[in-house]
Protein backbone atom coordinates (compact mmCIF):
# COMPACT_ATOMS: atom_id res chain seq x y z
CA UNK A 1 0.00 0.00 0.00
CA UNK A 2 1.67 3.17 -1.16
CA UNK A 3 1.11 6.42 0.65
CA UNK A 4 -0.31 8.93 -1.76
CA UNK A 5 -1.13 11.75 0.61
CA UNK A 6 -1.53 15.02 -1.21
CA UNK A 7 0.38 18.02 0.08
CA UNK A 8 -0.63 21.62 -0.51
CA UNK A 9 1.03 21.77 -3.94
CA UNK A 10 -0.68 18.60 -5.09
CA UNK A 11 -4.02 19.82 -3.80
CA UNK A 12 -3.55 23.04 -5.77
CA UNK A 13 -2.79 21.01 -8.89
CA UNK A 14 -5.88 18.84 -8.34
CA UNK A 15 -8.01 21.97 -7.91
CA UNK A 16 -6.61 23.41 -11.14
CA UNK A 17 -7.36 20.14 -12.93
CA UNK A 18 -11.00 20.03 -11.83
CA UNK A 19 -11.44 23.72 -12.44
CA UNK A 20 -10.11 23.30 -15.97
CA UNK A 21 -12.51 20.44 -16.66
CA UNK A 22 -15.43 22.52 -15.40
CA UNK A 23 -14.39 25.83 -17.00
CA UNK A 24 -14.65 24.37 -20.49
CA UNK A 25 -18.13 22.99 -19.79
CA UNK A 26 -19.99 25.56 -17.67
CA UNK A 27 -21.83 28.68 -18.73
CA UNK A 28 -20.17 31.96 -17.71
CA UNK A 29 -22.86 32.39 -15.05
CA UNK A 30 -22.31 28.94 -13.55
CA UNK A 31 -18.55 29.38 -13.66
CA UNK A 32 -18.91 32.72 -11.90
CA UNK A 33 -20.88 31.04 -9.12
CA UNK A 34 -18.29 28.25 -8.87
CA UNK A 35 -15.41 30.73 -8.55
CA UNK A 36 -17.28 32.77 -5.97
CA UNK A 37 -17.92 29.68 -3.84
CA UNK A 38 -14.28 28.56 -4.10
CA UNK A 39 -13.14 31.98 -2.92
CA UNK A 40 -15.57 31.91 0.02
CA UNK A 41 -14.54 28.41 1.05
CA UNK A 42 -10.82 29.16 0.70
CA UNK A 43 -11.30 32.30 2.75
CA UNK A 44 -12.48 30.13 5.61
CA UNK A 45 -14.46 32.88 7.32
CA UNK A 46 -17.83 31.19 6.80
CA UNK A 47 -17.57 27.63 8.09
CA UNK A 48 -21.03 26.69 6.79
CA UNK A 49 -20.18 27.71 3.23
CA UNK A 50 -18.68 24.34 2.28
CA UNK A 51 -21.92 22.48 3.05
CA UNK A 52 -24.05 25.10 1.34
CA UNK A 53 -21.93 25.10 -1.82
CA UNK A 54 -21.95 21.30 -1.95
CA UNK A 55 -25.74 21.29 -1.50
CA UNK A 56 -26.39 23.90 -4.17
CA UNK A 57 -23.96 22.53 -6.78
CA UNK A 58 -26.42 20.60 -8.99
CA UNK A 59 -28.86 23.48 -9.28
CA UNK A 60 -26.06 25.92 -10.10
CA UNK A 61 -23.83 23.90 -12.44
CA UNK A 62 -26.27 21.24 -13.66
CA UNK A 63 -25.92 17.47 -13.69
CA UNK A 64 -24.55 16.74 -17.14
CA UNK A 65 -22.02 13.98 -17.57
CA UNK A 66 -18.49 15.34 -17.42
CA UNK A 67 -17.65 13.12 -20.44
CA UNK A 68 -13.90 13.68 -20.35
CA UNK A 69 -11.79 13.20 -23.46
CA UNK A 70 -8.94 10.70 -23.37
CA UNK A 71 -6.44 13.58 -23.19
CA UNK A 72 -8.28 15.07 -20.19
CA UNK A 73 -8.25 11.71 -18.38
CA UNK A 74 -4.53 11.40 -19.15
CA UNK A 75 -3.92 14.84 -17.67
CA UNK A 76 -5.80 13.68 -14.58
CA UNK A 77 -3.60 10.60 -14.21
CA UNK A 78 -0.47 12.78 -14.44
CA UNK A 79 -1.64 14.71 -11.41
CA UNK A 80 -3.07 11.74 -9.55
CA UNK A 81 -1.87 8.29 -10.68
CA UNK A 82 -4.74 5.90 -11.52
CA UNK A 83 -7.41 8.60 -11.20
CA UNK A 84 -10.44 7.43 -13.19
CA UNK A 85 -13.16 10.05 -13.62
CA UNK A 86 -15.21 7.97 -16.05
CA UNK A 87 -18.88 8.49 -15.28
CA UNK A 88 -18.40 11.64 -13.20
CA UNK A 89 -20.88 14.47 -13.68
CA UNK A 90 -20.20 18.19 -13.52
CA UNK A 91 -21.90 18.62 -10.14
CA UNK A 92 -19.76 15.81 -8.71
CA UNK A 93 -16.59 17.46 -10.01
CA UNK A 94 -17.72 20.78 -8.49
CA UNK A 95 -18.47 19.14 -5.13
CA UNK A 96 -15.04 17.49 -5.06
CA UNK A 97 -13.44 20.80 -5.97
CA UNK A 98 -15.22 22.50 -3.05
CA UNK A 99 -13.92 19.90 -0.61
CA UNK A 100 -10.39 20.46 -1.91
CA UNK A 101 -10.84 24.21 -1.53
CA UNK A 102 -11.51 23.71 2.19
CA UNK A 103 -7.98 22.30 2.75
CA UNK A 104 -5.79 24.89 4.39
CA UNK A 105 -2.75 22.75 5.03
CA UNK A 106 -3.95 21.16 8.27
CA UNK A 107 -4.88 17.52 7.87
CA UNK A 108 -6.78 17.14 11.14
CA UNK A 109 -8.93 20.18 10.46
CA UNK A 110 -9.61 18.97 6.94
CA UNK A 111 -10.62 15.49 8.13
CA UNK A 112 -12.89 17.01 10.78
CA UNK A 113 -14.68 19.19 8.24
CA UNK A 114 -15.03 16.19 5.93
CA UNK A 115 -16.60 14.17 8.78
CA UNK A 116 -19.19 16.88 9.37
CA UNK A 117 -20.07 17.27 5.68
CA UNK A 118 -20.45 13.55 5.11
CA UNK A 119 -22.54 13.06 8.26
CA UNK A 120 -25.26 15.29 6.81
CA UNK A 121 -24.84 14.41 3.13
CA UNK A 122 -27.75 13.30 0.99
CA UNK A 123 -27.26 10.41 -1.42
CA UNK A 124 -25.95 12.42 -4.39
CA UNK A 125 -23.49 14.27 -2.14
CA UNK A 126 -22.23 11.02 -0.64
CA UNK A 127 -21.55 9.56 -4.08
CA UNK A 128 -19.59 12.65 -5.13
CA UNK A 129 -17.55 12.86 -1.91
CA UNK A 130 -16.61 9.18 -2.03
CA UNK A 131 -15.63 9.38 -5.69
CA UNK A 132 -13.34 12.24 -4.71
CA UNK A 133 -11.43 10.20 -2.11
CA UNK A 134 -8.30 9.70 -4.26
CA UNK A 135 -7.89 13.46 -4.62
CA UNK A 136 -8.20 14.43 -0.99
CA UNK A 137 -5.32 15.13 1.41
CA UNK A 138 -4.92 13.05 4.58
CA UNK A 139 -6.16 9.84 2.89
CA UNK A 140 -5.33 7.64 5.88
CA UNK A 141 -7.65 9.74 8.07
CA UNK A 142 -10.58 9.10 5.71
CA UNK A 143 -10.46 5.29 5.67
CA UNK A 144 -13.43 4.93 8.03
CA UNK A 145 -15.61 6.86 5.58
CA UNK A 146 -14.59 4.62 2.70
CA UNK A 147 -15.27 1.53 4.83
CA UNK A 148 -18.67 2.97 5.79
CA UNK A 149 -19.42 3.57 2.11
CA UNK A 150 -18.72 -0.10 1.47
CA UNK A 151 -21.17 -1.00 4.26
CA UNK A 152 -23.93 1.06 2.62
CA UNK A 153 -27.14 -0.63 1.52
CA UNK A 154 -27.22 1.79 -1.41
CA UNK A 155 -25.43 0.26 -4.37
CA UNK A 156 -24.40 3.55 -6.02
CA UNK A 157 -22.73 4.62 -2.76
CA UNK A 158 -20.96 1.26 -2.47
CA UNK A 159 -19.79 1.54 -6.07
CA UNK A 160 -18.59 5.12 -5.55
CA UNK A 161 -15.89 3.58 -3.34
CA UNK A 162 -15.39 0.23 -5.03
CA UNK A 163 -15.43 1.09 -8.74
CA UNK A 164 -12.89 3.06 -10.77
CA UNK A 165 -11.30 4.28 -7.59
CA UNK A 166 -7.65 3.78 -6.61
CA UNK A 167 -8.37 4.60 -2.96
CA UNK A 168 -9.39 1.13 -1.67
CA UNK A 169 -6.38 -0.57 -3.23
CA UNK A 170 -4.08 1.96 -1.57
CA UNK A 171 -5.72 2.37 1.83
CA UNK A 172 -7.81 -0.68 2.73
CA UNK A 173 -6.50 -3.42 5.01
CA UNK A 174 -6.83 -6.97 3.70
CA UNK A 175 -9.93 -7.47 5.84
CA UNK A 176 -11.57 -4.31 4.43
CA UNK A 177 -10.51 -5.19 0.90
CA UNK A 178 -11.87 -8.71 1.15
CA UNK A 179 -15.22 -7.51 2.50
CA UNK A 180 -15.50 -5.12 -0.43
CA UNK A 181 -14.74 -7.75 -3.06
CA UNK A 182 -17.09 -10.37 -1.62
CA UNK A 183 -19.86 -7.80 -1.20
CA UNK A 184 -19.43 -6.71 -4.83
CA UNK A 185 -20.42 -10.21 -5.94
CA UNK A 186 -23.03 -10.58 -3.21
CA UNK A 187 -25.00 -7.53 -4.36
CA UNK A 188 -24.75 -8.49 -8.03
CA UNK A 189 -22.31 -5.75 -8.95
CA UNK A 190 -19.25 -6.12 -11.20
CA UNK A 191 -15.68 -6.88 -10.16
CA UNK A 192 -13.82 -5.63 -13.23
CA UNK A 193 -14.16 -1.88 -12.48
CA UNK A 194 -12.33 -2.42 -9.16
CA UNK A 195 -8.75 -1.20 -9.36
CA UNK A 196 -5.99 -3.51 -8.14
CA UNK A 197 -8.03 -6.73 -8.22
CA UNK A 198 -5.10 -8.90 -9.33
CA UNK A 199 -2.44 -7.18 -7.26
CA UNK A 200 -4.44 -7.58 -4.04
CA UNK A 201 -5.47 -11.21 -4.41
CA UNK A 202 -4.86 -13.08 -1.18
CA UNK A 203 -5.44 -16.53 0.26
CA UNK A 204 -8.07 -15.42 2.77
CA UNK A 205 -10.14 -13.75 0.05
CA UNK A 206 -9.84 -16.87 -2.10
CA UNK A 207 -11.10 -19.00 0.79
CA UNK A 208 -14.11 -16.70 1.33
CA UNK A 209 -14.95 -16.74 -2.36
CA UNK A 210 -14.61 -20.52 -2.61
CA UNK A 211 -16.99 -20.90 0.33
CA UNK A 212 -19.36 -18.44 -1.31
CA UNK A 213 -19.23 -20.33 -4.61
CA UNK A 214 -19.98 -23.61 -2.79
CA UNK A 215 -22.94 -21.98 -1.02
CA UNK A 216 -24.33 -20.68 -4.32
CA UNK A 217 -23.84 -24.07 -5.96
CA UNK A 218 -25.58 -25.88 -3.10
CA UNK A 219 -28.55 -23.52 -3.48
CA UNK A 220 -28.69 -24.10 -7.21
CA UNK A 221 -27.79 -20.49 -7.97
CA UNK A 222 -25.41 -19.17 -10.60
CA UNK A 223 -21.85 -18.14 -9.76
CA UNK A 224 -20.43 -15.02 -11.36
CA UNK A 225 -17.58 -16.08 -13.64
CA UNK A 226 -15.66 -13.05 -12.35
CA UNK A 227 -15.35 -14.74 -8.96
CA UNK A 228 -12.58 -17.04 -10.17
CA UNK A 229 -10.34 -14.11 -11.02
CA UNK A 230 -9.56 -13.58 -7.33
CA UNK A 231 -9.26 -17.32 -6.68
CA UNK A 232 -7.06 -18.44 -9.61
CA UNK A 233 -3.64 -18.49 -7.87
CA UNK A 234 -5.08 -20.42 -4.92
CA UNK A 235 -7.01 -23.17 -6.72
CA UNK A 236 -6.88 -26.64 -5.14
CA UNK A 237 -8.08 -29.97 -6.45
CA UNK A 238 -11.75 -29.53 -5.47
CA UNK A 239 -12.07 -26.17 -7.20
CA UNK A 240 -10.25 -27.41 -10.25
CA UNK A 241 -12.75 -30.25 -10.50
CA UNK A 242 -15.60 -27.72 -10.19
CA UNK A 243 -14.07 -25.55 -12.93
CA UNK A 244 -13.53 -28.58 -15.15
CA UNK A 245 -17.24 -29.35 -14.97
CA UNK A 246 -18.13 -25.68 -15.64
CA UNK A 247 -15.83 -25.84 -18.66
CA UNK A 248 -17.99 -28.65 -20.02
CA UNK A 249 -21.51 -27.48 -19.31
CA UNK A 250 -21.35 -23.77 -18.35
CA UNK A 251 -22.63 -20.75 -20.27
CA UNK A 252 -20.21 -18.97 -22.58
CA UNK A 253 -19.20 -16.48 -19.88
CA UNK A 254 -18.89 -19.22 -17.24
CA UNK A 255 -16.69 -21.32 -19.51
CA UNK A 256 -14.54 -18.27 -20.25
CA UNK A 257 -14.10 -17.56 -16.54
CA UNK A 258 -13.17 -21.18 -15.87
CA UNK A 259 -10.61 -21.19 -18.71
CA UNK A 260 -9.03 -17.94 -17.51
CA UNK A 261 -8.81 -19.17 -13.92
CA UNK A 262 -7.31 -22.52 -14.91
CA UNK A 263 -4.79 -20.86 -17.22
CA UNK A 264 -3.61 -18.63 -14.35
CA UNK A 265 -3.38 -21.49 -11.86
CA UNK A 266 0.02 -22.92 -10.95
CA UNK A 267 -1.64 -26.16 -9.79
CA UNK A 268 -0.40 -29.19 -11.79
CA UNK A 269 -3.89 -30.54 -12.57
CA UNK A 270 -5.08 -27.20 -14.02
CA UNK A 271 -3.30 -27.77 -17.30
CA UNK A 272 -4.92 -31.17 -17.73
CA UNK A 273 -8.37 -29.74 -16.98
CA UNK A 274 -7.87 -27.13 -19.70
CA UNK A 275 -7.37 -29.79 -22.35
CA UNK A 276 -11.16 -30.19 -22.43
CA UNK A 277 -11.41 -26.77 -24.07
CA UNK A 278 -8.36 -26.17 -26.25
CA UNK A 279 -9.84 -23.16 -28.08
CA UNK A 280 -10.62 -21.29 -24.87
CA UNK A 281 -7.25 -22.27 -23.41
CA UNK A 282 -5.48 -20.80 -26.42
CA UNK A 283 -7.59 -17.63 -26.29
CA UNK A 284 -6.81 -17.16 -22.60
CA UNK A 285 -3.11 -17.73 -23.26
CA UNK A 286 -2.72 -15.23 -26.08
CA UNK A 287 -4.95 -12.49 -24.63
CA UNK A 288 -7.98 -12.81 -26.91
CA UNK A 289 -10.03 -13.75 -23.84
CA UNK A 290 -9.83 -11.41 -20.81
CA UNK A 291 -11.59 -11.04 -17.45
CA UNK A 292 -13.29 -7.87 -18.60
CA UNK A 293 -14.88 -9.72 -21.51
CA UNK A 294 -16.64 -12.30 -19.34
CA UNK A 295 -18.04 -9.83 -16.80
Amino acid at each position, binding site marked *: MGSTGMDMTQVERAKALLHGWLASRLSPEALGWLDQQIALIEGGERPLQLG*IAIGLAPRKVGKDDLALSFAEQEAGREIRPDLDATGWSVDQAARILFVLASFRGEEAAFAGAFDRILA*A*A*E*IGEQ*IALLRGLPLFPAPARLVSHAAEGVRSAMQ*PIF*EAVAHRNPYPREQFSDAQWNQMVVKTLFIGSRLWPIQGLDARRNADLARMLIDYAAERRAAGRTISPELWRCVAPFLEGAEIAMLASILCDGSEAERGGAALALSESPHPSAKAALEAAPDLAAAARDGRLTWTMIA
Partner: protein
Amino acid sequence: MYIDPHAHMISRTTNDYEAMASAGVVAVIEPAFWIGQARTNVGSYKDYLSHILGFERFRAGQFGVRHYCCIGLNSKEANNEALAEGVMEILPSFATKEGVVAIGEIGYDEQTALEDKYFRLQLDLARDLDLPVMIHTPHRDKKRGASRSMDVILEHKVDPSRVVIDHVNEETIGEVKDRGFWAAFSIYPHSKMTAERMVSLVKTYGPERLIVDSACDWGVSDPLSVPKTAQLMADQGLTAEAIRLVTYANALAVYGKSGQMSEDDWLSPPPIDQRTLYQGNTVLRGGQAPRVVTKDAG
Protein backbone atom coordinates in the same frame (compact mmCIF):
# COMPACT_ATOMS: atom_id res chain seq x y z
CA MET B 1 -49.38 9.67 -14.26
CA TYR B 2 -49.91 10.76 -10.68
CA ILE B 3 -47.92 12.65 -8.07
CA ASP B 4 -48.50 11.95 -4.39
CA PRO B 5 -47.30 15.22 -2.90
CA HIS B 6 -47.52 14.12 0.74
CA ALA B 7 -46.31 10.63 1.64
CA HIS B 8 -44.20 9.50 4.61
CA MET B 9 -42.56 6.68 2.69
CA ILE B 10 -40.05 6.04 5.47
CA SER B 11 -42.95 4.21 7.21
CA ARG B 12 -44.07 2.21 4.18
CA THR B 13 -43.13 -1.17 2.74
CA THR B 14 -41.72 -2.22 -0.61
CA ASN B 15 -45.17 -3.63 -1.46
CA ASP B 16 -46.48 -0.08 -1.21
CA TYR B 17 -43.82 1.21 -3.58
CA GLU B 18 -44.61 -1.55 -6.06
CA ALA B 19 -48.34 -0.85 -5.86
CA MET B 20 -47.84 2.90 -6.25
CA ALA B 21 -45.53 2.49 -9.23
CA SER B 22 -47.86 0.09 -11.00
CA ALA B 23 -50.83 2.39 -10.31
CA GLY B 24 -48.98 5.19 -12.14
CA VAL B 25 -47.49 7.22 -9.28
CA VAL B 26 -44.33 8.71 -10.79
CA ALA B 27 -43.26 10.97 -7.92
CA VAL B 28 -43.76 11.39 -4.20
CA ILE B 29 -42.97 14.23 -1.82
CA GLU B 30 -41.90 13.22 1.67
CA PRO B 31 -42.37 16.06 4.13
CA ALA B 32 -40.27 15.98 7.28
CA PHE B 33 -42.56 15.29 10.23
CA TRP B 34 -42.50 13.55 13.55
CA ILE B 35 -42.24 9.78 13.49
CA GLY B 36 -44.99 8.70 15.86
CA GLN B 37 -42.97 9.50 18.95
CA ALA B 38 -40.89 12.51 19.85
CA ARG B 39 -37.17 12.63 19.20
CA THR B 40 -35.11 13.64 22.20
CA ASN B 41 -32.07 15.24 20.59
CA VAL B 42 -30.94 17.00 17.46
CA GLY B 43 -28.72 14.10 16.42
CA SER B 44 -31.64 11.81 15.74
CA TYR B 45 -33.40 14.62 13.89
CA LYS B 46 -30.34 15.15 11.71
CA ASP B 47 -30.16 11.44 10.92
CA TYR B 48 -33.86 11.45 10.07
CA LEU B 49 -33.40 14.29 7.60
CA SER B 50 -30.44 12.62 5.93
CA HIS B 51 -32.37 9.33 5.90
CA ILE B 52 -35.29 10.76 3.93
CA LEU B 53 -32.82 12.53 1.60
CA GLY B 54 -30.66 9.43 1.31
CA PHE B 55 -31.82 5.87 1.73
CA GLU B 56 -35.50 6.68 1.22
CA ARG B 57 -34.77 8.45 -2.07
CA PHE B 58 -32.69 5.48 -3.16
CA ARG B 59 -35.41 3.01 -2.17
CA ALA B 60 -38.05 4.94 -4.15
CA GLY B 61 -35.77 5.06 -7.18
CA GLN B 62 -35.45 1.30 -7.18
CA PHE B 63 -39.19 1.08 -7.78
CA GLY B 64 -39.22 3.75 -10.46
CA VAL B 65 -40.69 6.41 -8.20
CA ARG B 66 -39.03 9.82 -7.98
CA HIS B 67 -38.68 11.04 -4.39
CA TYR B 68 -38.55 14.64 -3.16
CA CYS B 69 -38.57 16.12 0.34
CA CYS B 70 -39.83 19.02 2.35
CA ILE B 71 -37.50 20.00 5.17
CA GLY B 72 -38.73 21.52 8.41
CA LEU B 73 -39.27 21.35 12.13
CA ASN B 74 -42.78 20.02 12.78
CA SER B 75 -45.10 21.71 15.20
CA LYS B 76 -45.24 18.85 17.73
CA GLU B 77 -41.49 18.76 18.26
CA ALA B 78 -41.26 22.55 18.23
CA ASN B 79 -42.51 22.26 21.82
CA ASN B 80 -39.15 20.84 22.92
CA GLU B 81 -37.16 24.06 22.97
CA ALA B 82 -33.68 22.51 23.22
CA LEU B 83 -34.42 20.20 20.32
CA ALA B 84 -36.02 22.99 18.32
CA GLU B 85 -33.02 25.29 18.73
CA GLY B 86 -30.69 22.55 17.52
CA VAL B 87 -32.89 21.72 14.55
CA MET B 88 -33.14 25.37 13.51
CA GLU B 89 -29.34 25.47 13.29
CA ILE B 90 -29.14 22.56 10.87
CA LEU B 91 -32.22 23.37 8.78
CA PRO B 92 -30.58 25.83 6.35
CA SER B 93 -27.98 23.32 5.22
CA PHE B 94 -30.61 20.61 4.68
CA ALA B 95 -33.12 22.93 3.01
CA THR B 96 -30.65 23.80 0.25
CA LYS B 97 -29.97 20.19 -0.68
CA GLU B 98 -30.90 18.64 -4.00
CA GLY B 99 -34.51 17.50 -4.31
CA VAL B 100 -35.83 19.68 -1.47
CA VAL B 101 -39.00 21.25 -2.87
CA ALA B 102 -40.33 23.14 0.15
CA ILE B 103 -40.03 24.03 3.81
CA GLY B 104 -42.53 21.76 5.55
CA GLU B 105 -44.59 20.41 6.98
CA ILE B 106 -44.75 23.29 9.44
CA GLY B 107 -47.55 25.07 11.24
CA TYR B 108 -49.53 24.54 14.42
CA ASP B 109 -50.48 21.53 16.51
CA GLU B 110 -51.69 22.82 19.88
CA GLN B 111 -50.99 26.43 18.89
CA THR B 112 -48.53 27.03 21.73
CA ALA B 113 -46.13 29.97 21.98
CA LEU B 114 -43.17 27.79 21.04
CA GLU B 115 -44.99 26.42 18.00
CA ASP B 116 -45.71 29.97 16.96
CA LYS B 117 -42.09 31.04 17.41
CA TYR B 118 -40.59 28.28 15.25
CA PHE B 119 -43.35 28.51 12.66
CA ARG B 120 -42.48 32.16 12.13
CA LEU B 121 -38.73 31.53 12.00
CA GLN B 122 -39.25 28.88 9.34
CA LEU B 123 -41.48 31.13 7.26
CA ASP B 124 -38.62 33.63 7.22
CA LEU B 125 -36.23 30.86 6.22
CA ALA B 126 -38.50 29.83 3.32
CA ARG B 127 -38.70 33.44 2.17
CA ASP B 128 -34.92 33.88 2.38
CA LEU B 129 -34.23 30.64 0.51
CA ASP B 130 -37.03 31.29 -2.00
CA LEU B 131 -38.64 27.92 -1.27
CA PRO B 132 -42.35 27.00 -1.33
CA VAL B 133 -43.99 26.04 1.99
CA MET B 134 -46.15 23.08 3.03
CA ILE B 135 -48.46 23.87 5.95
CA HIS B 136 -49.77 21.24 8.35
CA THR B 137 -53.11 22.38 9.74
CA PRO B 138 -53.99 21.16 13.23
CA HIS B 139 -56.43 18.33 13.89
CA ARG B 140 -57.89 20.07 16.93
CA ASP B 141 -59.31 23.59 16.65
CA LYS B 142 -58.66 23.21 12.92
CA LYS B 143 -60.64 26.08 11.53
CA ARG B 144 -59.11 28.70 13.79
CA GLY B 145 -55.65 27.11 13.45
CA ALA B 146 -55.82 27.20 9.66
CA SER B 147 -57.03 30.77 9.66
CA ARG B 148 -54.30 31.84 12.06
CA SER B 149 -51.65 30.04 9.95
CA MET B 150 -52.67 32.03 6.90
CA ASP B 151 -52.60 35.31 8.88
CA VAL B 152 -49.06 34.62 10.05
CA ILE B 153 -47.86 33.59 6.56
CA LEU B 154 -49.10 36.86 5.09
CA GLU B 155 -47.66 38.80 8.02
CA HIS B 156 -44.26 37.30 7.17
CA LYS B 157 -44.60 38.38 3.55
CA VAL B 158 -44.62 34.88 2.08
CA ASP B 159 -46.51 34.84 -1.24
CA PRO B 160 -49.63 32.62 -0.89
CA SER B 161 -49.10 31.35 -4.44
CA ARG B 162 -46.05 29.54 -3.06
CA VAL B 163 -47.82 28.00 -0.05
CA VAL B 164 -49.83 24.75 0.18
CA ILE B 165 -52.26 24.47 3.08
CA ASP B 166 -52.61 20.75 3.75
CA HIS B 167 -55.25 18.58 5.46
CA VAL B 168 -57.93 21.00 4.27
CA ASN B 169 -61.63 20.04 4.61
CA GLU B 170 -65.08 21.45 3.80
CA GLU B 171 -64.79 23.92 6.67
CA THR B 172 -61.47 25.44 5.62
CA ILE B 173 -61.44 25.24 1.81
CA GLY B 174 -63.32 28.49 1.25
CA GLU B 175 -60.90 30.70 3.14
CA VAL B 176 -57.82 28.91 1.72
CA LYS B 177 -58.96 29.49 -1.86
CA ASP B 178 -60.22 33.02 -1.28
CA ARG B 179 -56.88 34.10 0.18
CA GLY B 180 -54.90 32.75 -2.80
CA PHE B 181 -53.29 29.66 -1.24
CA TRP B 182 -53.14 26.13 -2.67
CA ALA B 183 -55.45 23.68 -0.87
CA ALA B 184 -54.31 20.09 -0.35
CA PHE B 185 -56.50 17.22 0.85
CA SER B 186 -55.24 14.11 2.58
CA ILE B 187 -57.49 11.25 1.54
CA TYR B 188 -57.67 8.87 4.51
CA PRO B 189 -59.70 5.69 4.91
CA HIS B 190 -61.23 6.77 8.24
CA SER B 191 -60.45 10.42 8.93
CA LYS B 192 -59.42 13.74 7.38
CA MET B 193 -60.99 13.54 3.89
CA THR B 194 -62.61 10.76 1.86
CA ALA B 195 -62.48 10.26 -1.89
CA GLU B 196 -66.25 10.71 -2.17
CA ARG B 197 -66.20 14.06 -0.37
CA MET B 198 -63.20 15.07 -2.47
CA VAL B 199 -65.13 14.51 -5.67
CA SER B 200 -67.89 16.85 -4.55
CA LEU B 201 -65.36 19.48 -3.46
CA VAL B 202 -63.80 19.47 -6.94
CA LYS B 203 -67.28 19.75 -8.44
CA THR B 204 -68.15 22.68 -6.18
CA TYR B 205 -64.91 24.63 -6.18
CA GLY B 206 -63.32 23.59 -9.51
CA PRO B 207 -59.91 21.94 -9.84
CA GLU B 208 -57.81 25.11 -9.74
CA ARG B 209 -55.32 25.16 -6.84
CA LEU B 210 -56.73 21.91 -5.35
CA ILE B 211 -54.31 19.05 -4.67
CA VAL B 212 -54.98 15.45 -3.61
CA ASP B 213 -52.48 13.53 -1.47
CA SER B 214 -52.40 10.36 0.62
CA ALA B 215 -50.42 11.60 3.65
CA CYS B 216 -49.71 7.90 4.13
CA ASP B 217 -47.58 7.21 7.18
CA TRP B 218 -47.29 4.66 9.99
CA GLY B 219 -50.99 4.78 10.81
CA VAL B 220 -54.06 3.52 8.97
CA SER B 221 -53.64 5.26 5.65
CA ASP B 222 -53.59 4.30 1.98
CA PRO B 223 -50.62 4.92 -0.32
CA LEU B 224 -52.96 4.45 -3.29
CA SER B 225 -55.29 7.27 -2.26
CA VAL B 226 -54.29 9.49 -5.17
CA PRO B 227 -54.86 6.98 -8.01
CA LYS B 228 -58.03 5.66 -6.29
CA THR B 229 -59.45 9.17 -5.94
CA ALA B 230 -58.61 9.83 -9.59
CA GLN B 231 -60.51 6.68 -10.53
CA LEU B 232 -63.55 7.74 -8.52
CA MET B 233 -63.43 11.19 -10.12
CA ALA B 234 -63.45 9.59 -13.57
CA ASP B 235 -66.33 7.30 -12.60
CA GLN B 236 -68.32 10.29 -11.40
CA GLY B 237 -67.83 12.24 -14.58
CA LEU B 238 -65.11 14.76 -13.80
CA THR B 239 -63.10 15.72 -16.88
CA ALA B 240 -59.69 14.23 -17.57
CA GLU B 241 -58.19 17.71 -17.34
CA ALA B 242 -59.71 18.35 -13.91
CA ILE B 243 -58.37 15.01 -12.68
CA ARG B 244 -54.92 15.73 -14.12
CA LEU B 245 -54.81 19.07 -12.31
CA VAL B 246 -55.72 17.79 -8.84
CA THR B 247 -53.72 14.54 -8.96
CA TYR B 248 -50.65 15.69 -10.87
CA ALA B 249 -50.25 19.10 -12.44
CA ASN B 250 -51.17 21.39 -9.52
CA ALA B 251 -48.65 19.75 -7.19
CA LEU B 252 -46.01 19.96 -9.88
CA ALA B 253 -46.82 23.63 -10.49
CA VAL B 254 -46.42 24.75 -6.88
CA TYR B 255 -43.57 22.51 -5.74
CA GLY B 256 -41.85 22.98 -9.11
CA LYS B 257 -41.37 26.61 -8.08
CA SER B 258 -38.45 25.32 -6.03
CA GLY B 259 -36.58 24.56 -9.26
CA GLN B 260 -36.00 21.07 -7.84
CA MET B 261 -38.82 19.12 -9.46
CA SER B 262 -39.69 18.89 -13.13
CA GLU B 263 -41.43 16.45 -15.47
CA ASP B 264 -38.08 15.69 -17.09
CA ASP B 265 -37.01 13.99 -13.86
CA TRP B 266 -39.25 11.02 -14.68
CA LEU B 267 -39.92 11.46 -18.41
CA SER B 268 -36.28 11.93 -19.46
CA PRO B 269 -34.00 11.46 -16.48
CA PRO B 270 -30.36 12.56 -16.83
CA PRO B 271 -28.10 9.63 -17.76
CA ILE B 272 -26.11 9.95 -14.56
CA ASP B 273 -29.28 9.50 -12.52
CA GLN B 274 -30.47 6.56 -14.55
CA ARG B 275 -27.23 4.75 -13.92
CA THR B 276 -27.08 5.38 -10.21
CA LEU B 277 -30.28 6.49 -8.54
CA TYR B 278 -33.33 5.70 -10.58
CA GLN B 279 -34.45 2.49 -12.23
CA GLY B 280 -37.17 4.05 -14.33
CA ASN B 281 -40.89 3.66 -13.85
CA THR B 282 -42.18 0.39 -15.30
CA VAL B 283 -45.44 2.02 -16.26
CA LEU B 284 -43.61 4.61 -18.32
CA ARG B 285 -41.00 2.14 -19.56
CA GLY B 286 -43.34 -0.60 -20.65
CA GLY B 287 -46.23 1.62 -21.63
CA GLN B 288 -48.72 -0.55 -19.72
CA ALA B 289 -51.93 1.02 -18.53
CA PRO B 290 -51.61 2.09 -14.90
CA ARG B 291 -53.22 -0.43 -12.59
CA VAL B 292 -54.94 0.27 -9.30
CA VAL B 293 -55.11 -2.59 -6.84
CA THR B 294 -58.50 -2.14 -5.26
CA LYS B 295 -58.67 -5.01 -2.77
CA ASP B 296 -58.96 -2.63 0.17
CA ALA B 297 -60.74 0.21 -1.56
CA GLY B 298 -62.87 1.99 0.99
